[in-house]
């Protein structure tokens, strides 16, 4: 399995997930750095993401939207806090209005990502994500982010079989 450990801390409102990939750290970094790659995994299949601005430089802002089955768009932003290719990334992720401006009423999550080679051509990625409050967590989850999770699992096999390059 790709995911090797999950550590959920109710008290810190933090989730840490460890995954191992058969790829180099540089290649894994590209999943985050290249917007065309990023948009292929960030949104669930039913809500594909489009990144209109994205550059991993501290202080930079990314803009993206996810498009739902009915054409609804959910806008979001990132603010890059740390970017040290290929091993370290930290950013804040929040919701935005339709014009891309951050929506201050909506919560933001803080994510940190560390990427390191573990030999054998493999790379370990540790992603940890923290909510500012329990309400924020509830809100994020209620935003329909889990919609399509079920089908997501099914679609992975589809992607694998298709080789959509």
């Amino acid at each position, binding site marked *: 399995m*790709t*995911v090797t450990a*999950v550590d*959920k801390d*109710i*008290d810190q*409102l933090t*989730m840490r*997930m460890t*995954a191992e*990939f*058969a*790829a180099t750290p*540089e*290649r*894994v970094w*590209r*999943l985050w750095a*290249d*917007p*065309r*790659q990023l948009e*292929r*995994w*960030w949104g*669930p299949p039913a809500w594909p993401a489009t990144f209109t*601005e*994205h*550059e991993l430089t501290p202080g930079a802002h990314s803009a993206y939207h996810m498009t739902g089955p009915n054409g609804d768009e959910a806008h979001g932003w990132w603010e890059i806090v740390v970017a040290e290719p290929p091993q370290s990334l930290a950013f804040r992720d929040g919701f935005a209005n339709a014009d891309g401006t951050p929506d201050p009423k909506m919560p933001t999550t803080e994510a940190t990502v560390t990427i390191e080679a573990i030999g054998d051509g493999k790379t370990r*990625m540790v*992603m940890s*994500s923290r909510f500012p*409050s*329990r*309400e924020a*967590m*509830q809100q*994020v*989850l209620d935003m329909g*982010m*889990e919609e399509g*999770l079920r089908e*997501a*699992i099914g679609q*992975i096999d589809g*992607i*694998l*079989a298709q*080789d959509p*390059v």
Partner: protein
Amino acid sequence: MLTATTLSPGTWPDPDRVFAALADTTRRDIVWRAMTGDEGVVELSAHYPMSFAAVQKHIAVLERAGLVTKERIGRRKVVRSNVEAIRMAQRMLDRYEQLWRDRIDRMAVLLEEPIDAGSQTAAGSQTAAGSQTAAGSQTAAGSQPTGVDQPHKETDR
């Protein structure tokens, strides 16, 4: 309606209170012990190096969050955990975990694409690389788009 029959309004879990209540080691321990629901406040307080009053306060916080209830059994009052409220807290994190598990699965799929699409799945290999020798530790022909590539440098600011 359904829940109203199983939970009185006072015990209905409010997410904010639930998490705030659980943000303390002693209180989490109390919730754990109260799963069996056979100890009263006095017995519970014996487990902790703090005053009876302090433990009582912790229990009051848990009660307000709907995480525990006090029930009268004969002449005693026992503290019992509200399993439903605890499940709710857990479910929220579970959903988030699933979100990221799915993302990581999709990442793994992408990682299989450029470098060695061969290996195990392959089968339909129309991949340009041709010969499915794979295995080759010498990353086949110049097809490997690493650093140099840097697609999309939208330096507009």
